[in-house]
């Protein structure tokens, strides 16, 4: 286990402990019922997360990163931004995959605004995260609504990056 994972776990369980204390001050039965509710949510979600996490390895294995890096291509203006957004939405796997592809694209000559658009699109609506993480926890209607509303923003981020000439 690396240091950042340890920090995440400590802050996470620390927050749980603080909130549990706040709930407990309203009375023991309140804490018990809230904890039971959280545990029930957990039990309901485990199979879906299981399918997601165990399945995502297979999805990632059939979409090789080279395909997506190819889409990002060298500095290519707004067409490049559009492909970057599509590539971001199509990128499977966790944070390592998305950021690594961004780094590779920068190395092989992708323009920074395009890579910004890629990273932002991937953060906002990578299809795999929507399906495997967001849908199990949230109302599906909210998830699709949020994803649709997010569509303009990778383009806005690319435009801002072009305007200020950074990074």
């Amino acid at each position, binding site marked *: 286990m690396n240091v950042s994972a340890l920090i995440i776990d400590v802050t996470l369980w620390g927050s*749980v402990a603080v909130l549990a204390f706040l709930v407990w001050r309203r009375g023991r039965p309140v804490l018990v019922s809230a904890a039971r509710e959280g545990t029930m949510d957990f039990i309901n979600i485990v199979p879906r997360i299981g399918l997601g996490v165990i399945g995502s390895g297979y999805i990632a294995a059939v979409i090789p990163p080279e395909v997506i890096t190819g889409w990002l291509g060298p500095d290519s203006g707004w067409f490049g931004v559009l492909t970057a957004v599509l590539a971001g939405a199509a990128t499977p796997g966790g944070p390592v995959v998305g950021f690594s592809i961004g780094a590779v694209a920068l190395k092989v000559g992708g323009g920074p605004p395009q890579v910004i658009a890629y990273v932002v699109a991937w953060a906002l609506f990578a299809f795999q995260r929507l399906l495997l993480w967001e849908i199990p926890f*949230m109302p599906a209607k909210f998830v699709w609504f949020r994803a649709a509303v997010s569509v303009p923003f990778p383009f806005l981020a690319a435009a801002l990056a072009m305007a200020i000439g950074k990074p």
Partner: protein
Amino acid sequence: MIMIGVLVAVSATLVWRRDGIDGVLEILTHDLALFGGILPRVLAGCLLGAFIAEILPHEKVSRSLGPNSGLKGLLIGTAFGAILPGGPFTAYPVAAALLTVGADFGATIAMVVSWTLIGYGRAVAWELPILGVDFTLWRIVISLPIPVLAGALGRFVYVRMYPQGEAPPS
């Protein structure tokens, strides 16, 4: 869920045809280990969501994060998403809890988008080491306005899609 199951089954079959049973098992053991590692955090996230739903008073949340909370509600959602600890296993249960206690789509969108774009967790753990300080900082600076804008756009569209002001689904 069925769609995801089909997608996973098709992908697994493709891996099996390409790499044989060894390829399938290798991915399975790797992902099972990952799954085992994530489980405690998912539990923490679910408890966090349940406790937050218990503590936050319904009227107060609807006032500060509801449909009529204005720019302030979007800013609160953004700030909350930016400081929330943990990964998807915390952000989504907490966002779902906010929806049930009276936050509207706009403020919840601001929160989720803020968590994914300017939340420190992923940036520090993954983006900085892989993409470098310069890129990461500029990417975050450029992303700063997005949660509020996305929340505002969400509210704008939601009011026009559901003009009767029906309650958000819980």
